[in-house]
């Protein structure tokens, strides 16, 4: 549906994106994850055709998007909900109508779609409110509703639930999943990993503007056997013990802060112990040291600088990673 090839983007001399290849399938939800400044928002603006990449190309529905006319046509089937959405001055309904009119939908049909979408998003009571009087959470809901009213083929959302409570978040993702089922390609950038992993089929992890083969949060797609309670899943050569009632395809995460790093095995209640070797050490200067460890698959663990010094760890040091079966997250 939407593909990016050789995307490079610079702000001045600084390269903020360097992506070889990305494909977003029709009728799928893809999560884009990564730390602040990793390039998520820039990527989404490029995918929405509102920012031109310095180099590289985008292909939509098999057609390369090259000219200004191509980009305008693309923006009529792709839409983006920004991290801090903007509502034009005027009522909520006027905001909802703006995009519909820009896409040639007018009159009673446009009004019908506004009413339907506001009801779907559970914000019908805000229809006549002045957009400038809405709370941050309400603005976010209206921005999502405004995008959904356009019935886009590609829906891009940047942190769509950062100001939402849990019930609103669940409602939003249910609506998004329904859109996915209708064939909409959805791409969501979010810090709220639990939600995006639960609802997305695939994810793209960005680190310093590049796609990372490993999520910063040790997230893996696995097949969980039938049954309840304690189970084992295979991850390459590793066997992971976990506790879940989920079965079938699922996403699991080994939170980097929950991985215990030691220099030798020790007796403990942790069911998971993996031997590995440190490949890279990064100190963020704010009391957190990130270790990249090759344990058969690449895993990330975070420790404090004092732990690093006490264990005398350096690149190449052998380590043992431990994590309780109950600490392995299943989405």
């Amino acid at each position: 549906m939407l593909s990016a090839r050789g995307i490079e983007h610079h702000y001045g001399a600084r390269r903020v994106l360097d992506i070889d290849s990305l494909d977003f399938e029709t009728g799928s939800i893809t999560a884009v994850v990564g730390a602040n400044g990793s390039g998520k928002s820039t990527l989404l603006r490029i995918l929405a055709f509102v920012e031109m990449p310095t180099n590289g190309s985008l292909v939509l529905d098999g057609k390369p998007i090259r000219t200004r006319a191509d980009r305008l046509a693309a923006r009529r089937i792709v839409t983006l909900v920004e991290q801090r959405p903007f509502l034009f001055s005027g009522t909520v309904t006027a905001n909802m109508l703006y995009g519909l009119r820009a896409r040639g939908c007018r009159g009673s049909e446009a009004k019908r779609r506004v009413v339907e979408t506001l009801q779907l998003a559970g914000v019908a009571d805000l229809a006549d409110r002045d957009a400038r009087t809405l709370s941050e959470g309400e603005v976010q809901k209206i921005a999502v509703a405004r995008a959904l009213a356009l019935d886009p083929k590609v829906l891009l959302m940047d942190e769509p639930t950062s100001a939402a409570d849990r019930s609103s978040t669940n409602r939003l993702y249910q609506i998004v999943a329904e859109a996915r089922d209708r064939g909409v390609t959805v791409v969501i950038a979010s810090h709220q990993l639990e939600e995006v992993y639960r609802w997305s089929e695939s994810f793209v992890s960005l680190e310093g503007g590049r796609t990372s083969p490993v999520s910063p949060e040790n997230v893996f797609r696995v097949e969980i056997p039938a049954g309840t309670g304690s189970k084992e899943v295979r991850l390459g050569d590793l066997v992971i013990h976990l506790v879940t009632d989920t079965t079938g395809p699922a996403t699991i995460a080994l939170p980097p802060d929950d991985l215990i790093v030691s220099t030798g095995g020790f007796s403990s209640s942790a069911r998971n112990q993996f031997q590995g070797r440190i490949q890279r050490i990064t100190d963020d200067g704010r009391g957190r040291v990130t270790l990249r460890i090759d344990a058969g698959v690449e895993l990330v663990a975070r420790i404090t600088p004092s732990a690093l010094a006490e264990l005398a760890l350096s690149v190449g040091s052998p380590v043992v990673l431990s994590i309780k079966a109950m600490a392995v997250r299943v989405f």
Partner: protein
Amino acid sequence: MDFLIEGFRRAVQLILSGDADVFGITALSIKIALSSTVLACLVGIPIGFVVGTTRFWGRRAALTVLNTMLAFPTVVVGVVIWGLLTRNGPFGGLGLLYTWWAIVAAEVVLAVPIAAALTAAAVQSIDPRVRRTALTLGAGPWRAHWAVAGEARFALLAAVVVAFGRVLAEVGAAMIVGGNIRNHTRTLTTAVALASSQGDFALAIALGLVLLGLALTVNVLLQLFQGRGHA
């Protein structure tokens, strides 16, 4: 001090009695000010929009030129326009010198930089998300620009009002290219200058009060409009 009080008393009398001179001069001034403002905004606002919203080589220089032109001496503009419109000038054949159109031409030259510079400042201060949001919702470039203008409408209106105020209160260029001819090119400001030089203090005060009244009316209308928009 008595002559001041007497001047105000006679000024009020002139206004209330519907003095034909006062009302004729006022009508001409409003006609010139409105015509100049409309023409200046038709030219200046698009220039300001382009300078304020697009990136091009020499943009900073263009902004500097616009801001410098805000301080253009009005008599210099008057002399230049006079030179262009005089019988031996390049546009002398049009026969516009010492007509109200000549005053309009001079006022337009003075007001275009105001409309352009204030428009550029207005659209530059608008949140960049406005244009981006319009684009993500499927707007073409013109519709996206219109969205920016919509969000900047109060600042743009203020630019129009400032331009109107400038041309209404201008005297130097109007005197040079208009000639201050009674019933033809005599505006409120040139009439005030003439009346005070002739010692007709009451007429000067009366016309001055009308000028102030016009400026006050326009600003009150602007305030009311802004108040409604922000309610």
